[in-house]
């Protein structure tokens, strides 16, 4: 089991817009290159993409929370 880390500081969002579905649900799986979340910083929204396939066990921070660089945002498994 591992974690996905924020590669930049900012504000963390799990969905592309407030009314949209999350990119990945807890328990959901993802494929390499898939967007897991976006981080807003420097007036831009930056996609956080998965490097390999996996499953999100749980998110460690809430939608809209501040995140620091290198912080774990989700626990993931294979």
């Amino acid at each position, binding site marked *: 089991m591992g974690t996905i*880390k924020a*590669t*930049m*500081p*900012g*504000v963390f969002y799990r969905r592309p817009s407030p009314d949209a579905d999350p990119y990945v649900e807890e328990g959901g799986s993802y494929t390499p290159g898939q967007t897991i979340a976006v981080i*807003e*910083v*420097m*007036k*831009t929204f*930056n996609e956080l993409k998965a490097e390999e396939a996996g499953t999100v066990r749980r998110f460690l921070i809430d939608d809209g929370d*501040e*995140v*620091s*660089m*290198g912080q774990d945002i989700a626990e993931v498994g294979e």
Partner: protein
Amino acid sequence: MSELIVHSPGLSTTVQDTGRDGFYEIGMPPSGAMDQFSHRAANLLVGNPEGAATLEATYIGPKLEFTDSRIVAVTGAEAPLSLNGEPVPTWEAFAVKPGDVLSFAMITAGARPYIAVSGGIAVPEYLGSRSTYTLTGLGGLDGRKLAEGDRLPLGEASGARPGVRVPDELRPEHPSVTPLRTVVGLCSYRLTDAGMESFLGTEWKITKDADRVGYRLRGGKLDFVEREQPFGAGSDPANVVDLGYPVGSIQVPGGDEPIVLLNDAVTGGGYATIGTVVSADRDRIAQARTGDLVSFVPVDLAAALAARRDRRSRLDRIKSLVS
């Protein structure tokens, strides 16, 4: 072929030098490297003049391929670096060959790495500078941040040698709260005494709105002196008759979100400014990240000039290591 090929651009990487001087009066900010010490140190390590153009990345470093033999140095923010997968050090000159690829792991301290290549990034100058100013899309590479597949021209390299490193004591520190030496003044008369005390006594948190234009901060509340607004100023207590803003000056719209204006900032406007971060400490704020804390430390002009001389003497020591 003397080019740098951009495999991945990072989050926001631009060509910068010591800045574009002489156009503040038409409303054009100087741009240039936010952390001038790291930019100049990187140039010195690779045998460039301090004013040669480097790459300034923010938060995520780029992945770059070299097409000829060059000397390279990376300074500023700390990140594990690799050349073709093999580790290479920061703050130290190393040699690259055609086909070599430089990549960054996640930054461990600071915000902005600087990448200098012997010969410098040789994009065309605009008004005497290669610095990128993205607001009006000028300077740098087509006036914009780098994109995947870009090819950056390089200048003629002089005879630098690999292996020269900047000793630890000359490198910047990355404290948990970054102190910013500040000359209080300008329109500081707009704040009450309690407001000024709160400004200087607060550890301010850097918000997500922190970029080359300015850093917006949160964490305290500043009270304004009540007055009838002077003619032409506008109605808000934070408004003044529009005036020029020094680079590094701090404005306080609303009283609860100070903004430190930086290299790409607006050159003037109608908000009261209450002091100016000294030029040497713009290097420090450039390496502070969203979510980090900063504090303002009041100093006088003599201390501001001393800080500037100290930066110069640290650069001169690096220069002497290289020659």
